[in-house]
């Protein structure tokens, strides 16, 4: 398709979609108003499930099946990206001798922030049912912590403390754990991903039943997924070289 034909198709499509969007949005309830039918249903449903963070209650208890779908998309694209980023037949992994120079200030800040970031990540994952946060957010923080080693230290150092196969295994195990927890719920109560564990006391760390365990599984999966993804991209940029 030539560029001009492409533009004609785009303006026709965008004009149509734009007109429909405007027509639909003009009928929307006013922004910031008090009419929220989903909230009126989900907030009462969250009470009594001992998960004060209602977003987590929706994601991991009321609609945990949707989160399984989301997690499968994550797993699928990590597998896809890892397959695409493999070194091909005529490529080998070679590490450059010269690793460049890191500013002392960057090193200091990086090593200071590394333990802090790890703890914050673990905190966000394990308190996902109590306060805003959860497995997805905490997992990204944890993966960032691992990569502070690359920012402050060197690529070699990152490779030493980050055995890629471990993270690939952890990714699969965490994804499987989510499904197994769901199947246990199915066997015990007849509902897939039913909340089977005791709910505990509202506000306790080990409360909210399966929400806590699903959060930890998702946290492990997201951490390993992001590490595997970034390891593929970093290898492509830094160590995969064509050999003839």
């Amino acid at each position, binding site marked *: 398709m030539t*560029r001009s034909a*492409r*533009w004609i198709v*785009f303006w026709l*499509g*965008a004009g149509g*979609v*734009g007109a429909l*969007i*405007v027509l639909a*949005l*003009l009928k*929307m309830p*006013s*922004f*910031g*108003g*008090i009419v*929220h039918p*989903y*909230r009126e249903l*989900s*907030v009462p449903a*969250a*009470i009594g499930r001992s998960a*004060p*963070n*209602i*977003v987590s*209650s*929706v*994601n991991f208890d009321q*609609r945990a099946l*949707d*989160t399984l779908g*989301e997690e499968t*998309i*994550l797993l699928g*694209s*990590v597998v*896809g*990206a890892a397959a*695409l*980023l493999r070194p*091909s037949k005529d490529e080998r992994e070679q590490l450059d001798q010269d690793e460049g120079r890191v500013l002392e200030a960057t090193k200091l800040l990086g090593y200071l922030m590394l333990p802090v970031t790890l703890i914050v990540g673990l905190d966000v994952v394990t308190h996902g049912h109590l*306060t*805003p946060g*959860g497995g*997805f*957010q905490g997992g990204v923080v944890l993966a960032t912590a691992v990569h502070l080693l690359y920012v402050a230290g060197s690529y070699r150092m990152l490779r030493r403390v980050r055995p890629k196969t471990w993270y690939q295994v952890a990714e699969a195990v965490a994804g499987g754990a989510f499904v197994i927890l769901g199947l246990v719920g199915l066997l015990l109560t007849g509902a897939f991903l039913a909340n089977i564990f005791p709910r505990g006391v*509202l506000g306790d760390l080990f409360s909210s039943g399966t929400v806590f365990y699903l959060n930890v599984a998702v946290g492990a999966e*997201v951490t390993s*997924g992001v590490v595997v*993804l970034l390891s*593929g*991209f970093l290898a*492509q940029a830094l160590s995969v070289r064509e050999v003839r």
Partner: protein
Amino acid sequence: MSLLPYFVAGWLLLIGCFGVVRSRDLIHTVVCVAIAQSGTYVLLLSTGFQYGASAPVQGAPGPVVDPVVQALTLTDIVVSATVTALLLALVIQIAKRTDTVDPDKLDELRG
């Protein structure tokens, strides 16, 4: 002006698509796809917003904003991030095989 946030969402979707069509670099294309998708975050969050309401945590004073759309936005962000990663991996392979990231130069089929 109380509909403005919704129109920002629609505008983000269309400007993202505009960028995809106009793009002459596949990395730029991937970023434009991510921008088009970020329109959905704005739409979802502005649907659930209420003036003066607090975060959807039990025990918060007064009314809370809609937690369902926040959960949807979380899902949306995760999907967007992973799809972006997958697309960027594809771009790396395309760049290696064809020595170009200009979508206009990728029109011939290869066996």
